[in-house]
């Protein structure tokens, strides 16, 4: 009981500290921190009142309470993974669209201003005229 309590408490506090620090350093966005804060909260509640888990296991007919905890934890992690996969897919689609647009805009730019106009997005530097008349674009950095 007391070791479960200590472990749960340490895990929860550690997670909270890491989350807080990541948020503070702009490494994590609030919307992704919310779910982990909720997890921390649940862990704390179970650490303080382990009888809640026993009670729930009894109610659901699970013989070993820990199994219920594992089941719940695995389902939660699975859900979060799927959700992150979804987010990645959405981002990929967005970056794909942006990449296509960049290519087309660059082509359009080159057609209107000639090959010598500096492109801020130039990845492969080419010989170009530094006097190109496009004040809108910052000078080419290679």
């Amino acid at each position, binding site marked *: 009981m007391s070791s479960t309590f200590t472990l749960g408490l340490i895990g929860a506090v550690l997670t909270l500290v890491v989350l807080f620090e990541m948020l503070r350093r702009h490494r994590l966005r609030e919307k992704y921190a919310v779910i982990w804060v909720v997890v921390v909260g649940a862990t704390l509640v179970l650490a303080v009142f382990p009888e809640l888990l026993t009670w729930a296991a009894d109610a659901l007919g699970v013989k070993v309470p820990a199994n219920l905890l594992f089941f719940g934890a695995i389902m939660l992690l699975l859900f979060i993974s799927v959700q992150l996969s979804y987010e990645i897919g959405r981002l990929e689609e967005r970056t794909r669209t942006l*990449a296509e647009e960049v*290519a087309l805009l660059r082509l359009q730019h080159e057609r209107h201003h000639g090959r010598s106009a500096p492109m801020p997005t130039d990845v492969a530097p080419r010989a170009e005229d530094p006097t190109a008349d496009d004040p809108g674009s910052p000078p080419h950095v290679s």
Partner: protein
Amino acid sequence: MPGRPEQRILVVIPAWNEAGVIASTIAEVRAARPDVDLLVVDDGSGDATADVAEAAGALVARLPYNLGVGGAMRAGYRYALREGYDVVVQIDADGQHDPNYLTELVNGLGSADVVVGARFAGEGTYRASGPRRWAMWLLAGVLSRLARTRLTDVTSGFRAANRRAVAVFADHYPAEYLGDTVESLVIALRVGCTVRQLPVEMRPRTVGQASQSPLRATLYLVRAVVALGLALVRRWPAATETLGQEKA
């Protein structure tokens, strides 16, 4: 196109690290049809593909990183839509498609929205066996049924599209595996475009043949089944947030 004597044709060549062959491919297209515009979509090549293509006189759109054929082609279709082309012809950069069939493909658009240049009945110099053959048979069978016409080489990257199909492909051209060939055809068919095939002779690839190892062939079959199955059951129209902006 009825009532349109002068068709504006854009040949789109998706190219990824093809600096060695792109110039000759461009020259061949030019020789076959000097009147078409040529857009090479450089798919994030690490070599000089884009510069070589530009020197050879093609328009070049440079993708900032590799997207795969699907991404390159959707960019090409978007360009065509915005610039008001009547026809887009897709040709591989590696020289396996003979540009002398270009006119035939374009003329085929008189009775279809998409015309696919297909290897002679899926045979010719190319022979597949085992799982790869089953995959090709399955893809061809399902798509033929869907298209209500005989399609034997649905993974061919040699195809022509008219304005109607270009408008569809400018929004929906999957980047996934087999998406640029099989799923894009399913998409075209599901929005009511007609697809036809035209027998063409393909030249052996200059770079290398598709792998024939049994494991790879089986993997290909599985991926083909998954890609085809998904293409068939996906909800339509797709509700992706980045789409629906191409109303030109």
